[in-house]
C-alpha cells in the first residue's frame, strides 16, 4: 500500500517530463493524433535538426548562459562579502546592528514592480543584460542563509588566525569560506536556478525580442495561445502549433539544469534544513 502510494506520487513527477521528451522525439503527425505517451512514436530527430538551425533559440541560449555566469560572479561575491560582517557580534563589529536593520528593511519593504521599473529605466539599463542581474543582485534571503552559516563556524579558528596577524579579508577567504562551502554550494545552486529560470525580468526590462534569454523565449512560444478568447480557437490552436519542435526546445532549455542537479542535490537538502531549522 505504502509502495503504491509512493510510486504514484513519484511517477506523477516523472511521467509528464518523460512525456515531453517522448513528444520531442516523435513524428509530428503522431503527436497531433495524441498517440504519444511515454515512448516516442515513429522516433525521429527532425525537431532537433530544426532546432539546431534556429539561430534565435541559440542566441537566447547564449544570453542565458552569459546571464548565469555574470550573475553568479556578481551575486555570490556581493552576498558572501555582505554576509560575513553581518555574522559578527555587535561587540566585534560596532555597526553590525545598523547594517542588519538596513538589510531587514530592504527585505520587508519594496517599491513594487512599477517604481523598480522606473529606477532601472532611469539608470538607462533597459535592454541591457545588467537589467536582469543588478536589481536582484543582493538576495536578502540568501544573505541571511550565508550569515547563519558563518555564525556557526567555531570562533577558535578565527582567534588562531588573528594571533598570526591575518586580516579580516584573509580570515574570510582562507577560513570561513572553505568551512561553509556546503552552504555556499546551496546558495550557488539557488542563484544559478534563479537566473536560468527567470523569464519575467526580460519581459519587463528587455524590449528587443532578439535579446530575450531562453526562458523568456520559451515563454513567448505559448503567448499566442494565452490571448485566445474563444474555446474553439484554443482547441484548433493546439492542433496547428508545432508541438514536437516546442517540446524539443523545452527539453534542450532544461538540460543544463538536469546536468548540474544530481551534483547539487545533497547540498541543497542540507542547505534547506540548516536554513529553515535553526537548532
Amino acid at each position, binding site marked *: 500500500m505504502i509502495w503504491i502510494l509512493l510510486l504514484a506520487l513519484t511517477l506523477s513527477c516523472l511521467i509528464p517530463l518523460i*512525456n515531453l521528451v517522448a513528444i520531442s522525439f516523435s513524428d509530428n503527425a503522431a503527436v497531433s493524433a495524441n498517440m504519444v505517451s511515454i515512448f516516442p512514436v515513429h522516433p525521429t530527430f527532425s525537431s532537433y535538426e530544426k532546432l539546431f538551425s534556429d539561430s534565435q533559440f541559440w542566441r537566447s541560449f547564449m544570453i542565458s548562459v552569459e546571464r548565469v555566469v555574470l550573475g553568479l560572479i556578481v551575486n555570490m561575491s556581493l552576498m558572501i562579502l555582505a554576509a560575513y560582517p553581518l555574522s559578527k557580534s555587535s561587540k566585534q*563589529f560596532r555597526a553590525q546592528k545598523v547594517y542588519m536593520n538596513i538589510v531587514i528593511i530592504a527585505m520587508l519593504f519594496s*517599491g513594487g514592480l512599477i517604481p523598480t521599473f*522606473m529606477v532601472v529605466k532611469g539608470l538607462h539599463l533597459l535592454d541591457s543584460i545588467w537589467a536582469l542581474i543588478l536589481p536582484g543582485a543582493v538576495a536578502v534571503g540568501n544573505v541571511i542563509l550565508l550569515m547563519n552559516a558563518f555564525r556557526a563556524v567555531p570562533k577558535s579558528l578565527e582567534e588562531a588566525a588573528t594571533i598570526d596577524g591575518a*586580516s579580516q579579508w584573509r580570515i574570510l577567504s582562507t577560513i570561513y569560506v572553505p568551512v561553509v562551502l556546503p552552504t555556499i554550494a546551496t546558495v550557488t545552486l539557488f542563484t544559478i536556478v534563479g537566473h536560468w529560470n527567470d523569464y519575467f525580468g526580460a519581459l519587463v526590462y528587455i524590449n528587443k525580442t532578439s535579446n530575450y534569454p531562453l526562458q523568456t523565449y520559451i515563454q513567448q512560444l505559448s503567448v499566442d495561445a494565452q490571448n485566445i*478568447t474563444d474555446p474553439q480557437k484554443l482547441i484548433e490552436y493546439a492542433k496547428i502549433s508545432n508541438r514536437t519542435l516546442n517540446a524539443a526546445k523545452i527539453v534542450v532549455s532544461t538540460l543544463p539544469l538536469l546536468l548540474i542537479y544530481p551534483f547539487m542535490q545533497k547540498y541543497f537538502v542540507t542547505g534547506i534544513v540548516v536554513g529553515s531549522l535553526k537548532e
Partner: protein
Amino acid sequence: MKNKKDQTAFHLMLAPSMVFLIIFSFIPMFGIVMAFQNYIPAKGISGSAWVGLDNFKFMFQIPDSRQILINTMVIAIWKIIVGTFVSIVFALLLNEIRVRFAKKFMQTVVYLPNFLSWAVLATVVMNIFSYEGPVNALLGWLGIDPVLFMASNHWFRPMLVLTDVWKGFGYGSIIYLASLTAIDPGLYEASSIDGANRFKQLWYVTLPGLMPTILLVTTLNLPNVLNAGFDQIFNLYNPLVYATSDIIDTYVYRVGLVERQYSLGTAIGLLRSVVGIVLILSANKLAQKLTDYRIF
C-alpha cells in the same frame, strides 16, 4: 589599532551590497508616492499632480477588485492546505521505506519539478490537460465527455492548486523528512513493546514529533495568503478564465505595465505590500511565541 583595521574591512565588505540595496530597494520606495499622484511619465514624479487618495478610492470602485481579492486568497489558501498535506504524507510514507536505493531515487525525482520554471512547465501542463491530451483520453475511456480544463472557470482553480502542489510537494517534504530523523528511536521501541502497531505508532509517536515543524511551516506560510503564485498563473491563464484566476499580482502587471496606468498599479501594489508586511511581522511574532523560531 588592530580592531580599527577590522572595522574598516567590515565596512568595505558591506559597501557594494549597500549601494545596490539603496539603488534597487530604497530608491524605488520613494516611487511609492506615485500612488498618490496622477503620474504622467513625461512630467516625472516632481511634475505630476497630487491626487491624494483618489487612486485608492478608484481601486475600490473597480467592480473586479472584490473578485481579484477573493481569487487571490482562495487560490493561495487552497495551495497552502493541500501542499502542506501532500508534503507531510509523502514524507511519512517515504520514512517507512527501508530500501535505500528506492528512497534515494524517489527523492531525486520528486524534488526535480521545483527546479523547473513555470515558463517551461506551462507547456507540460497544457500538453497533458489539453482538449485531446492524455487526461481527456483517459476520461473518454471511462465514458466521460472531454473537459477544456485550461479554459473553464469551473476547473481552472483546481488545476492551479493541483499543478502547484505537484511542483512543490517534494521540495516541501525535505523539511519534514529532516525532522522525522530527529525523532528519538527509543520512542518507537517503547511503543512497540507496549504493543502499538505501525498505524498507532504513526498516530502517537510520529505525528506529535512532527507537530512543531508542521506548526512552524504553516506559520511561516501565513504571509503567502496574498501570494497566489504570479509565475504559475501568468503562464497558464488566458482571458477565458480571468474571472476565477486573476490575482492581485497579475492584475498589477496588466494595469500597471501593459496598460501603463502607473499610478493605479502602484497604489494596488502598495496596498498589497502593506498587508504583506503586517502578515510577515505577525508570522514572525507567532512563530517566536509558538516555537522559539525567528525569521529575523
